[in-house]
């Protein structure tokens, strides 16, 4: 087996997600992408994750807004993290391009956060609400969460699409609203299972205490796997 020598090809280090170690040789932060339609609760999920995990982990957040800095400003206003741990990437009206086709601005933002607030354990990258086809490049994140909600119609899991079908975790949020919008949670679970096979699904309600728990549990598992990987 041939192994490339670091000195002979130093230029191959482009610090994308393909590269699990930092410049100093230590394992870099786990990067999790959060995508999904507008208003389903991505920013609320990021905020809840930060509140639940910030005492035990060093966390930073990158937001990709469509045309404002709303998400970054919401997180700052809510003070879920200090300002130097939150970066906003501008996407030229195309968040799916910035998270999938041309990830250079996002990689730069992650690098800057590592530099100013690092070393980090966890970086959350939120995509501006886009559509059901937006997915993150493997060059940017290690795993992705797709967030939908019960209010957007209980047939979304059945419709599928790359986000619903392939995301590492599907979050179905706002279960507290199900009775009011007439969404059938059991049908959603069944359809999600049919689309996703063994990939996990989490039902959440962020208006209830510790409603984020299924997602924090999943992230803890990912972190355990990540730190067990080769350094």
């Amino acid at each position, binding site marked *: 087996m041939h192994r490339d020598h670091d000195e002979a*090809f*130093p*230029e*191959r280090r*482009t*610090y*994308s997600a393909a590269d699990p170690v930092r410049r100093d040789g230590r394992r870099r932060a786990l990067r999790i992408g959060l995508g999904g339609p507008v208003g389903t609760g991505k920013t609320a999920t990021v905020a809840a994750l930060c509140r639940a995990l910030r005492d035990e982990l060093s966390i930073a957040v990158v937001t990709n807004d*469509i*045309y*404002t*800095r709303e998400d970054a400003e919401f997180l700052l206003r809510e003070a879920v993290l200090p300002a130097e741990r939150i970066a906003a*990437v*501008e*996407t*030229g*009206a*195309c968040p799916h*391009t*910035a998270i999938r*086709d*041309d*990830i*250079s*601005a996002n*990689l*730069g933002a992650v690098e800057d956060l590592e530099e100013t607030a690092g070393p980090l354990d966890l970086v959350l990258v939120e995509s501006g609400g886009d559509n059901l086809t937006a997915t993150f490049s493997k060059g940017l994140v290690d795993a992705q969460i797709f967030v939908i909600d019960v209010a957007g119609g209980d047939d979304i899991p059945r419709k599928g699409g790359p986000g619903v079908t392939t995301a590492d975790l599907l979050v179905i949020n706002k279960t507290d609203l199900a009775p009011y919008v007439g969404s059938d949670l059991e049908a959603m679970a069944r359809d999600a299972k049919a689309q996703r096979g063994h990939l996990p699904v989490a039902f959440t309600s962020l208006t209830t205490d510790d409603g984020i728990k299924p997602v924090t549990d999943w992230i803890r598992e990912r972190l355990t796997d990540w730190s067990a990987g080769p350094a």
Partner: protein
Amino acid sequence: MSRAALLVLADGRFPAGGHAHSGGAEPAVAAGRIKDAHSLEDFCRGRLHTAGLVAAALAAATAAGRDPVAVDEAADARTPVLALRITARKLGRQMMRAARATWPSAELDALAAARPQGAHQPVVLGLAARSAGLTPLDAGYAAAYEAVSGPATAAVRLLSLDPFDATAVLARLAPDLDQTATAAAATAARISDEGFDALPAASAPLLDITAQQHATWPVRLFAS
């Protein structure tokens, strides 16, 4: 190396961050200066012969083997507006990441080490062209084309302009692009005799002023 590398470098989908920038088109659309294909063409022609010419000459000079750090200083001197210097360096850093992954070279590594926060984008573009085995003229073409293709794509998104009309604008600018790239390569060749003063310093004051204003807009579609 292969001339076809120029197609890769100049492709609008080359992943170096350009998609998030309008090249001044967003404030021009808001002010009503770009409102249709005709006014888009005027805007692009103006940008090409000012900012575009300077960018093309910087790219050609770097591709010709001039010290990239010195060319970067020349670029800084030719970019009087802070917002545009920040944009040029941000895009330069993104171009550097893409270039090192696509055409790795010791020269790119050296510039990345000398300018960790990014050299001016046309300088990095020129060095990417050099690493790809392309000529100074090729680098001038890539920079000149980018100076007009960015605003044209942005105008399609901002105005819902017919994409065929926008592409026809680019096609009509082809002779101007030839002229700009050729002039850029010619000035780059004069540096050995005349120093960096041979590089053009054409400016478009309205682009400069509106870029600085745009940087303070709270709501906008494009980063610049």
